[in-house]
């Protein structure tokens, strides 16, 4: 099944908003670190509901935000939500593919991607594309919950028809450098908000032990790799 088929279905049944709510626990910390200045143009790869751009429009002087998504229904929803919640912000949504970015060389100040990068057909090509569209000094904030060290995520592939890439932290750093990006930071951003029940309630439907859930959310959290265009 294609990105379009899989994620159009997600958008249609409201999973775009569900992801927004869950991913926000760590995404807000990721976005808060971005050195976005007045007048900057920011690209969000795999924008989903488009919340990252709405948040940046509210918290920074970003002039224009572009959300790219391979699923037309995702882009359509994101555009609606943005018109509703942030009508004054200059946000635009585009249907496109990570491996074939429809943006000119050196045209964007920053790029961000939350919980989407590993769906790329060819993640190395995607990194080269990101390096191409960023201006010198532009940053790429790449945040993922699906990665090698997070053993609790390994089962996700079985539930999704799109092939996923499961790199570990060092592979992310290596691939960024291979694509011509400097690696400025790597971090595990903790989710301190997902509610973890008291020990006596385990096992739950999803978790055998409380320790595993603590490890998943409070310790491993979201793997963030920050690249910078030279």
């Amino acid at each position, binding site marked *: 099944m*294609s990105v*379009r088929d899989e994620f159009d279905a997600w958008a249609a049944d409201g999973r775009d908003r569900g992801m927004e709510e869950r991913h926000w626990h760590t995404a807000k910390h990721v976005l808060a670190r971005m050195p976005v200045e007045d007048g900057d*143009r920011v690209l969000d790869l795999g924008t989903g509901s488009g919340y990252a751009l709405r948040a940046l429009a509210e918290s920074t002087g970003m002039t*224009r935000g*572009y959300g790219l998504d*391979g699923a*037309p229904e995702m*882009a*359509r929803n994101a*555009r609606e939500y943005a018109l509703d919640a942030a009508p004054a912000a*200059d946000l*635009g*949504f*585009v*249907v*496109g*593919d990570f491996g*074939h*970015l*429809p*943006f*000119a*060389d050196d*045209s*964007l100040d920053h790029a961000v991607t939350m919980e989407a990068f590993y769906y790329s057909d060819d993640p190395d090509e995607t990194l080269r594309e990101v390096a191409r569209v960023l201006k010198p000094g532009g940053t790429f904030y790449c945040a993922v919950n699906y990665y090698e060290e997070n053993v609790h995520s390994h089962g996700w592939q079985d539930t999704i028809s799109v092939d996923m890439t499961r790199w570990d932290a060092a592979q992310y750093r290596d691939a960024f450098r291979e694509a011509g990006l400097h690696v400025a930071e790597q971090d595990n951003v903790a989710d301190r908000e997902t509610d973890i029940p008291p020990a006596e309630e385990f096992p739950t439907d999803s978790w055998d032990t409380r320790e595993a859930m603590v490890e998943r959310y409070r310790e491993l959290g979201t793997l963030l790799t920050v690249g910078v265009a030279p």
Partner: protein
Amino acid sequence: MKESLLDIVCCPLDKHDLELEVTEREEGEEGEIIAGTLTCTDCGETYPIEDGIPNLLPPDMRE
């Protein structure tokens, strides 16, 4: 889409500039483009704009 997108958007295949043709535009001076096409000035490939959203997938990924 806003017309300002043209400053930075390009053909996903060969990265050349795109030419805009508008078939429906919102009212007002800075009205968004609701429907139209974007055509690559180099390879001639055309990309549709529908409901205010340009579809810039490579043609073979469009469906």
